């Protein structure tokens, strides 16, 4: 039994992934082609598993939901179902509608989060100063023994403010940029490789170096090559081997 952990940070769960797919496929959120979106979604999950990345259980639950909706839509309709359909009460549509409703609701807050990010950035452009040291004015004052009127959150808030407070930078430091493998370089390598052998190659064989930076860059290079129609992907069925081959007459890099 595998352990599924919540680890995916750049996609905020299955709803976010679905929204992303809907955007990319330029689908109307209120008119989602179930078969297509399910296929795309599963391809995604499958690719993650191929790359041996942890897939959080929520993603798998959503996959099951999508498959259920899809299969119900494909099933021959019984008479009762037909009746339901006439009344607009079909169960599968209900589930799809529920999903659309959730997507729309979630999207509102996802957009609000974009506003928040912007506000956070704007606020970060303003610098303040710590309170001046006024203790000289307070020498002869005794702290009064009144009741406290603060909460744990006031204390935490005060502490956060302290942590956020900037410190003078001495000396002025320099930053070192992280070295990354350019995706273009990897794209050229993959294409050269495929053209040289002139046969299709297993998707897995494109990942000879198994460090995560390399895996990611290679995968992105493959996606970019597909987008540019430089390579061609074949898969006989769900979860079977994926093959990659070069398209004829592609561009040089």
């Amino acid at each position, binding site marked *: 039994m595998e352990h599924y952990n*919540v680890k995916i*940070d750049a996609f*905020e*769960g*299955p*709803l*976010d992934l679905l929204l992303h797919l809907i955007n990319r496929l330029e689908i*109307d959120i*209120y*008119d989602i082609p179930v078969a297509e979106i399910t296929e795309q979604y599963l391809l995604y999950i499958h690719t993650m598993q191929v790359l041996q990345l942890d897939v*959080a259980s*929520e993603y798998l639950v*959503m996959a099951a939901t999508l498959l259920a909706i899809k299969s119900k839509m494909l099933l021959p309709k019984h008479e009762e179902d*037909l009746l339901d*359909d*006439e009344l*607009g009460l079909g169960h599968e*549509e209900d589930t799809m*509608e529920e999903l*659309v409703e*959730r997507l*729309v*609701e*979630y999207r*509102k*807050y*996802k*957009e*609000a*989060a974009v*506003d*928040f*990010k912007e*506000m*956070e950035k*704007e*606020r*970060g*452009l*303003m*610098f*303040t*100063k*710590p*309170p*001046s040291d*006024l203790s000289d004015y307070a020498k002869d004052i005794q702290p009064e023994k009144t009741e406290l009127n603060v*909460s744990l*959150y006031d204390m*935490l808030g005060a*502490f*956060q*403010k302290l942590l*956020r*407070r*900037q*410190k*003078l*930078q001495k000396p002025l*430091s320099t930053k070192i940029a992280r070295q990354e493998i350019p995706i273009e370089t990897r794209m050229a390598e993959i294409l050269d490789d495929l053209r040289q052998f002139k046969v299709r190659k297993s998707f897995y064989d494109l990942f000879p170096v198994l460090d995560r930076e390399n895996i990611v860059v290679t995968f992105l290079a493959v996606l970019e090559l597909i987008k540019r129609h430089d390579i061609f992907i074949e898969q006989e069925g769900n979860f079977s081997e994926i093959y990659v081959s070069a398209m004829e007459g592609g561009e040089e890099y």
Partner: protein
Amino acid sequence: MQWKGEKSINIINWKGIVESLLFAAGDEGLTLKQMALVLEVEELQAEEIIHELMEDYRNDAMRGITVIELAGTFQLATKKENSAYLKRLVVTPQASTLSQAALETLAIIAYKQPITRAEIEEIRGVKTERPIHTLMAKALIKEVGRADGSGRAYLYGTTKEFLDYFGLKKIEELPPLPEKIEDDYQQDDADLFFGRFQETMDS
């Protein structure tokens, strides 16, 4: 500025005094109430003084600092346009910004407070324990009570620190949620129904 009944000699430089107070208070800021107490004037008068001071600052484009209102307090801060120079001078130890998960969670809490974790998770479709911990530790949210029902789950709401962090005067200043989507939805819902109805009729 001068209040009724005060002698015309020895005019008190209220704006200058408030500027001193704001400077000394730093990022702690001052509320109108505190200013009124220290100046021994009414809050309305304190408000008038601070607004005059803010006006002066606004009218002088050469100033490098300005008066801002954050979470119900007034404080002095550097102008945004000088941030490039300030970044060369200072390091902010906790410059790390909030993660996407934390921002989404915070947005839901900000607009729907008070709200339980289960309700947040229902909207996001994923577990939200960790973003909530982060937001609590950063004092951006707090427990504001308990929900009714068997679980008696904690209800979360935003804090004063939240307003400060995002540069807001008060919670009402939040940009409105994009409700337009909702309207589209209503309409499309009807379209969808009629579309399907038609299909069924035609088949």
